[in-house]
């Protein structure tokens, strides 16, 4: 009992007496631990955060009808299969051919708030359609009709008697003599995507129902899901199997490329983390070695007074462990703050906390410190105390 008290006293006294040296050692350990916990947190969180950035490329899964068209209910039930936390957006589309000034134009009805999530790269000059009667038109359409944001136009829809097909035939409406439906729209914005979308006009589902007089059915549904390609494949199979009338497909261009680029990025961060960590740990070790090597004289004196080698090693290890633990804890906190700052600055979102990382950081710092102490202490204990005390 007494022995342990003495031991604790020796360790604490040694730490408190030699304050300036201990601050240096503590600082070194804290730096190492900060880099460890900060970089590991970033490394683990990068795929998730970057994955969210890759959603900028738009939909990575589409639902198509197994036969003809999908009902609103089957689309809803297919969407409900996807875990809510992973679903970025889901925009169902219904395509119909309408006529503007007697020229056929493809009109897409969709949930415009969801489109902004699934296709964040759409560049709209003007506003997205907000209320009923608003329509967004593609750049090409705008040029053809010389329309601007705020212009008014009338869409004509010819109800097709012999079953409408989902792929639109531009001339389909022209031969029809059935009385047409009309609806007036205000152009809210012009769409620029650099792709086929510029040839279409976009309106809300409710407006389309009103124009066609038919309840909503969907031709296709675009989904943006933040998940790895393996997870996507599982979701895809599950939906195709369990939901009737819906076939889920992956947008290969997006998913494959995402996997390629993301794996490179992750490898980059991993390698950087390993290199930085290895170098920092060696830095920490050399500093500790320098701090301990200074105390050769003390070790010599103790040996001269009759201390055994093991008791000296124990005492130094005790100091090392206390320093390592305190430095590790400090570093874990600082590292988290750093990772959080990076996440907020780069990705505008907060980092996921990894509770396991704090004990790991502390343990690693303790081990590194202990090893760094051990080497000079060992060499010091090997020396004859008389030589050390003489200063040779």
């Amino acid at each position, binding site marked *: 009992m007494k022995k342990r008290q003495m031991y604790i006293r020796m360790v604490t006294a040694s730490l408190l007496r030699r304050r*300036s*040296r201990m601050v*240096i050692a503590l*600082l*070194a350990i804290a*730096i190492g631990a900060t*880099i460890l916990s*900060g970089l590991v947190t*970033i490394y683990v969180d*990068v795929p998730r955060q*970057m994955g969210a*950035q890759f959603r*900028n*490329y*738009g939909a990575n899964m589409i639902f198509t009808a197994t036969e003809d068209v999908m009902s609103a209910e089957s689309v809803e039930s297919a969407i409900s299969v996807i875990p809510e936390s992973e679903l970025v957006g889901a925009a169902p589309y219904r395509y119909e051919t309408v006529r503007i000034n007697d020229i056929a*134009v493809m009109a897409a009805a969709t949930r415009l708030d969801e489109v902004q999530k699934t296709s964040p*790269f759409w560049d709209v000059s003007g506003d997205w359609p907000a209320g009923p009667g608003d329509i967004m038109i593609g750049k*090409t359409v705008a*040029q*053809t009709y010389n329309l601007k944001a705020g212009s008014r136009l009338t869409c004509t829809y010819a109800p097709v008697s012999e079953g409408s097909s989902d792929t639109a*035939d*531009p001339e389909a409406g022209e031969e029809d003599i059935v009385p047409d439906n009309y609806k007036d729209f205000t152009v809210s914005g012009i769409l620029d*995507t*650099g*792709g*086929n979308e*510029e*040839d279409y006009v976009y309106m809300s589902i409710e407006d389309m129902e009103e124009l066609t007089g038919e309840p909503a059915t969907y031709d296709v549904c675009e989904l943006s899901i933040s998940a790895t390609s393996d997870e996507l494949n599982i979701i895809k199979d599950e939906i195709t199997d369990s939901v009737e009338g819906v076939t889920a*497909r*992956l*947008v*290969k*261009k*997006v998913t*494959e*490329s995402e996997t390629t680029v993301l794996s*490179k*990025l992750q*490898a*980059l*961060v991993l*390698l*950087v983390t390993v*290199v*930085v960590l290895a*170098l*920092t740990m*060696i*830095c920490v070790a*050399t*500093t500790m*070695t*320098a701090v301990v*090597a*200074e105390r050769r*004289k003390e070790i010599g004196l103790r040996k001269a007074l009759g201390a055994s080698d093991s008791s000296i090693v124990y005492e130094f290890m005790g100091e090392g462990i206390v320093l390592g633990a305190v430095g590790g804890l400090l570093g874990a906190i600082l590292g988290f703050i750093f990772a959080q700052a*990076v996440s907020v*600055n*780069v*990705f505008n979102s907060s980092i996921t906390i990894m509770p396991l990382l704090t004990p790991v950081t502390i343990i690693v710092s303790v081990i590194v410190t202990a090893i760094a102490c051990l080497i000079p202490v060992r060499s010091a204990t090997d020396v004859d105390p008389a030589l050390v005390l003489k200063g040779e």
Partner: protein
Amino acid sequence: MFIRMIAKAFVRQWKKMAMIAFTIALGASLATAMLSVMMDVGDKINQELKAYGANINVVPKGNSVISELYDVGDENVTGAYLNESELGKIKTIFWAFNIVDYAPFITTEAVLEDGSFVEVTGTWFNHHMELPTGEQLDAGLNSLRSWWDITSGRWIDEQTNDKSVAMVGSTLAKKEGISVNDDITLKGIASDVTVKVVGIYDSGGEEDDYIYVPVDIAQLLGGLDGKIDSIEVSALTTPDNELAQKAARDPGSLSVSQYETWYCTAYVSSICYQIEEVITDSVASAVRQVASSEGTILEKTQLLMILITILSMIGAALGICNLVTASVMERSQEIGLMKAIGAHNGAITGLVITEIMCTAVIGGIAGFFAGLGFAQIIGHTVFDSAINMRPMVIPVVTVLVFIVTLTGCIPAIRMLLNLHPTEVLHGR
């Protein structure tokens, strides 16, 4: 005497000096490696993002209004085409170096033996070009459609004189029962051609219903000699800023100096503009899905790397600082003795700083080269290509090492100068 003291210090205390040099080398190599990787990561990631395909689409002027709107059904009616002979000019624009890949497309329609219509697209697969600049470039679908799965067979290889060959989409192949090495006869608008199927691909998109052939075969089928429909260009670009957005709307609205800045920066809009200049009657537009996302991801990656670099630089700096402080403090007795025999504060400071600086130079140089090595390891492991060395790294690392080492010395030296020689020599 001064030089002798320094030299002696190195000889006698080589272990201690070696440790300081080693730590400085570690810090310097960390800084060098991180800076090199950080400065090059933009280019590297940009290359990787090319996996997403072309970011610029070039179509004929008159066609841009109608082509894609009516492309189902009535081919060859609109009559606007680009000239195949002008394709090489794309590699002569101001930002030619940034154009990494491009391919022309010519689409026509053909009838299969069983009477069904099929869309046939002529394009480049791995077209080899010798450019006037002496550069060589292999361009075409092989790299522009990196996400295509070749389910059986292989890509068309233009180098080995693959003539009268075709690649068939998986959906169409299944429907028509076509397999690799089959000969299929395509009845085109102008003439009939028999081609051999060398590969079947799965693109995951609508291309699965098409047939891809070399350009000359599609031109033969459609009687469209020397004409092409569109060009897909994959270019390395700089993320858009306000100027680029303004210019994209109307380059005429810029002042002369703004125009020059815009023209000489690799914005997607300025590259589009330059392509329009060299290809007669063409409209080049950015494929927003690729172009704008690329910018975002590039920016984020660069920012991430910058922050990691800053952290590791701070770590390296503090590490060096710390060790220098620790090793100078250790020498209190030696300095006490010097003071006791009458050394000035200035002389002691000079001695300590010179010693440490000599070590820093040795360690810094070693660390710099080690850092270059680390950077190359990272480059080769992650990107399979070397990291370009930027001259900027040298002054930054030099300044960093000197400042950090000096900063490390100062608190220790101040402490040593305040020591009373008697106390130190007594061992208190």
